[in-house]
């Protein structure tokens, strides 16, 4: 530090930095607002820093976004909750800017601050702010206002509450669809704070108005919140007020609305209780499962298991199961994939007999689907069926499916099935595995795609963990070590990768006797990439084997590599030697 220190003016530093042309510097200084505030102390933060920030709102949106975020956690720096209200002014301005993400962040920060403020302060400072925004001239202010009512409302006195409700009602009928959309998507939050009498009267009126809006987009958002709103009501009120709207929407001519209903229906069921489910929601759901539009069927199919869980098994078998059969033959692969990802979960719900009799054929047909995602989704959930009926009934169809996926021409599909292999091994048991799948695991090690080879190596490690070292010695190691003689250097690299992963799992003895010689041998490879990977592997094995082996085998090998003509080989060899020294020193 310089010996003669000029006096330090934290605010001046900030002002100076914010004038800089380089946006990165401006951003950095905003990110360190709390440092400036702490240097200033609480009082001057309140009287100088915050007013300055309130004025400084003409910057890039990126800087404003950072400011909105910082201010949300600023209460400690202005002197605690009793002074929190000073933070409202700069955030209020940020609520009115054009850029959506700045506004959203400002609203989020205001909610954070408001939820900590004391009741009286909320009435004195927060509520007036909400009212000002709600009366804002430009729509951005009014859009932001909608997200703040649920903070202001609870502590307001009765007359103010009435006023707030009526203001929200006006926002629901605003001239700008932007505002109505915001009102619709925030309604359930606000509703959560409103007393039940007003909930039934005012809020439900707003909900009904919004669901009849002439803009599709507004209605859509009203539907989106209906389940959350329904849970606030008594079941019978929910059944009387929300249910009819939703059942009606489930037949809307816009597929987007029906899609939204398909997503919400299950949650709504939780809010209405058993009787309306049977009479109204179940038929609506069945209609959605048979919708003309694939997108709607996808959404509905994805909920099939959850829906069955709240129904009695008889109802599920009678009404849902026939649809599931149809969906398993759907013309859209995405529908089938959505079904396949959940249908296995129906087994525990329906019980053993129904599963064998009704579900098994569906599983089998999905397992033979022409679209790989469908098969993968089935395989990924195998454990759920295993618990109910055991795997034997499926295993005959399973193997061809796995083999086909293992050889799929898209590497992402191959990758996905490799990742399920340990799960399969666990479910199918050693016997099945040895016969059928062992070969595949080796085949992947020599795949054309790096990610597959890498995943294959990792897969061997997980199998060794699952079945133990003895099994690995017998079934994995011999085949793996054979690769050392492969003519392709990328395959030899994969071997090294596999060894570095298997070593720690198999333990010191096997590593020394079987793996290490192969590695040391590879250090004489003609390809430099192999050699520096040898150095890396040796480094990773230091912690696995005994000190004596390190000194006797690993060190000489690394010393030799450290004199290699190739610079990268030397680099990694030296690194290896260094870590040997560290280990020796610490022990």
């Amino acid at each position, binding site marked *: *530090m*310089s010996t003669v*220190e000029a006096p*330090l003016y*934290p605010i001046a*530093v900030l002002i100076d*930095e914010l004038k800089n*042309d380089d946006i990165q*510097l401006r951003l950095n200084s905003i990110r*360190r607002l*709390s*440092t*400036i*505030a*702490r*240097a200033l*102390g*609480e009082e001057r933060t309140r009287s100088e820093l915050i007013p300055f920030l309130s004025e400084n709102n003409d910057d*890039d949106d990126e800087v404003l976004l950072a400011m909105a975020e910082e201010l949300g956690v600023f209460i*400690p*720096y202005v*002197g*605690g909750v009793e002074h929190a209200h000073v933070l409202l002014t700069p955030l209020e301005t940020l609520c009115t800017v*054009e850029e*959506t993400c700045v506004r959203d962040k400002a609203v989020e920060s205001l909610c954070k601050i408001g939820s900590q403020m004391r009741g009286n302060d909320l009435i004195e400072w927060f509520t007036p702010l909400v009212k000002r925004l709600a009366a804002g001239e*430009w*729509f951005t202010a009014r859009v932001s206002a909608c997200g703040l009512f649920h903070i202001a409302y609870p502590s307001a006195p009765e007359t103010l509450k009435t006023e707030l409700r009526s203001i929200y009602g006006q926002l629901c009928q605003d001239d*700008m*669809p*932007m505002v109505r*959309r915001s009102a619709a998507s925030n309604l359930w939050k606000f509703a959560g704070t409103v007393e039940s009498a007003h909930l039934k009267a005012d809020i439900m009126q707003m909900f009904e108005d919004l669901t009849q809006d*002439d803009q*599709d*987009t507004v209605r859509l958002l009203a539907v989106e919140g209906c389940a959350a709103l329904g849970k606030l009501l008594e079941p019978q009120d929910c059944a009387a007020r929300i249910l009819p709207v939703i059942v009606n929407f489930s*037949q809307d*001519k*816009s*597929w*987007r609305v029906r899609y939204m209903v398909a997503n919400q229906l299950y949650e709504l069921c939780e809010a209405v209780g058993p009787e309306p489910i049977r009479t109204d929601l179940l038929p609506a759901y069945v209609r959605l499962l048979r919708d*003309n*539009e*694939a*997108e709607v069927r996808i959404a509905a199919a994805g909920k099939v298991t959850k829906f069955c869980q709240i129904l009695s098994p008889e109802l599920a078998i009678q009404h849902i199961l026939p649809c599931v059969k149809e969906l398993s033959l759907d013309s859209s*692969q*995405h529908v089938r994939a959505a079904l396949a990802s959940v249908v296995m979960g129906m087994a525990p719900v329906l019980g053993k007999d129904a599963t064998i009799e009704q579900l098994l054929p569906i599983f089998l047909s999905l397992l033979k689907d*022409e*679209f*790989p995602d469908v098969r993968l989704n089935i395989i990924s959930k195998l454990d759920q069926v295993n618990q109910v009926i055991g795997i034997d009934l499926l295993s005959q169809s399973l193997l061809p499916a796995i083999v086909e996926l293992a050889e799929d021409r*898209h590497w992402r599909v191959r990758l996905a099935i490799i990742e399920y292999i340990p799960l399969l091994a666990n479910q199918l048991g050693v016997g099945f595995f040895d016969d059928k799948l062992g070969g595949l695991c080796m085949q992947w090690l020599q795949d054309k795609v790096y990610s597959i080879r890498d995943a294959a190596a990792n897969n061997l490690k997980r199998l060794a963990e699952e079945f133990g070292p003895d099994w690995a010695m017998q079934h994995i190691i011999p085949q793996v070590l054979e690769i050392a003689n492969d003519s392709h250097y990328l395959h030899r690299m994969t071997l090294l990768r596999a060894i570095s992963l298997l070593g720690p799992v198999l333990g010191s003895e096997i590593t020394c006797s079987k793996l290490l010689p192969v590695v040391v041998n590879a250090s004489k490879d003609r390809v430099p990439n192999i050699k520096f990977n040898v150095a890396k592997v040796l480094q990773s094995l230091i912690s696995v084997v005994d000190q004596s082996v390190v000194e006797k085998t690993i060190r000489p090998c690394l010393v030799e590599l450290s004199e290699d003509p190739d610079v990268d080989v030397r680099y990694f060899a030296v690194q290896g030697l260094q870590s040997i020294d560290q280990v020796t020193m610490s022990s």
Partner: protein
Amino acid sequence: MLKQILIKLPRKLQKSDLLDSSGSDSGNHTSNSGNGVQCTNIGNSISSRLSVVKRVSSAVFPASIMVGVEAVEPYLSCTDVSILQKQSLFISKLNLCCEVSDFSDPDKTSAEQDLKHQTLIELVDFVSTGSAKFNEPAIAAMCKMCAVNLFRVFPPKYRSNSISGEVEDEEPMFDPSWSNLQLVYDLLLGFITYSSLDAKVAKKYVDHSFISRLLDLFDSEDPRERDCLKTILHRIYGKLMVHRPFVRKAVSNIIYRFVFETERHNGIAELLEIFGSIISGFAVPLKEEHKMFLWKALIPLHKPKLVGVYHQQLTFCVVQFIDKDPKLADSVIKGLLKYWPVTNSQKELMFISELEEVLEMTGMAEFLKIMVPLFRRIAFCLNSSHYQVAERTHLLWNNEHILNLVTHNRQVIFPLIFPALERNSENHWNQAVLNLTQSIKKMLCEMDEELVLACRQKMEEENSQSSEATEKRKLIWERLETAANVIPPA
């Protein structure tokens, strides 16, 4: 009192009928044995609803609706009937076309589809020859027919059906019923542009709800459809003056949603094209409302990443504004600087060409207000490692108007851009850019050698100080940090 009822009645009718037909799904069509049945059903229901009015005064209400539907078979050709009957035949044919056929179902007999197609062709001919007479019932029937056929919900954007899944499928979706839709659009256009059309009556049926649903269709993926819509909306704007403010407001709302919420819309280019000619029709001095449209809708439209799709139309609109009021130039340039792309070079190229167009219309007074931030940005662009961006920026100096502005303000501008030019000479990778930089430097020297020398000196000073400045900044923050830790937080 009676008049009021009469005015309201047809509209309500139209609405309820719409609901009827939209509520029925494709399954219902197959259950109808033929179109004739369906048509008379509609006719009967209309007449039965109207009979109430009829009792009150049949003289006031135009009788042709009833006559049209009940008395004239819609299958007759227009040439086969007397002039008197023509009008009622016209309406019954319009009503016949309200039956929406389901093209997605290949099993359906094509007979009724053919019939509708033929009828539509006849109607288009009938209107285009000028022999139609658009009285109120005809207008009502026309609007209803258009609404039933055109106003539909677009299907979701289909996921690619190929197993690959990795190939981006950009093929636009075409409605299978386009052949009919196109005829309906032709008919609507013919109707709106019909020379003897009474705008006072038409505006009751081509109302706000009709227009806003028409605007929703601009999101269609089919460029042919958007093209039809563009022409029609333009004509509506021209003919139905009362709806102009509504159209402007509704389009603004579409733009707001696009910019601030979804960033997805297929028809922005078409909407802007209409606006291009609307703006050129604005009276000067510009109303505040129109300027707001520039600031709140057009300028933010520079932000979405899809700007390339409609940039040409957008530039045209912006230029129209400045043409009307050159004082707007500085706020436009400020807007461009605000939304200047950071990483997207293609977009940057568009911005530079728009900037050039705008600058060309910018006067000295406005230029003075923005030149500092503007040339800071230009300095960055000169240095761009994307050679097209760098090249394009250098070419700004070929523009005489811009050069003139620069020359007059060289004391401010040279210091801003000279360091950038120097940086290019030192390490730009592209030979073409290097050459351009060289020639601009030469140009600057010829203009004011003394100033260039001063700039060079100042730059060298700054360069030597820059590491010092970084060091100083680090030190200040360290001291702040210490100070902050001395005073404990509450």
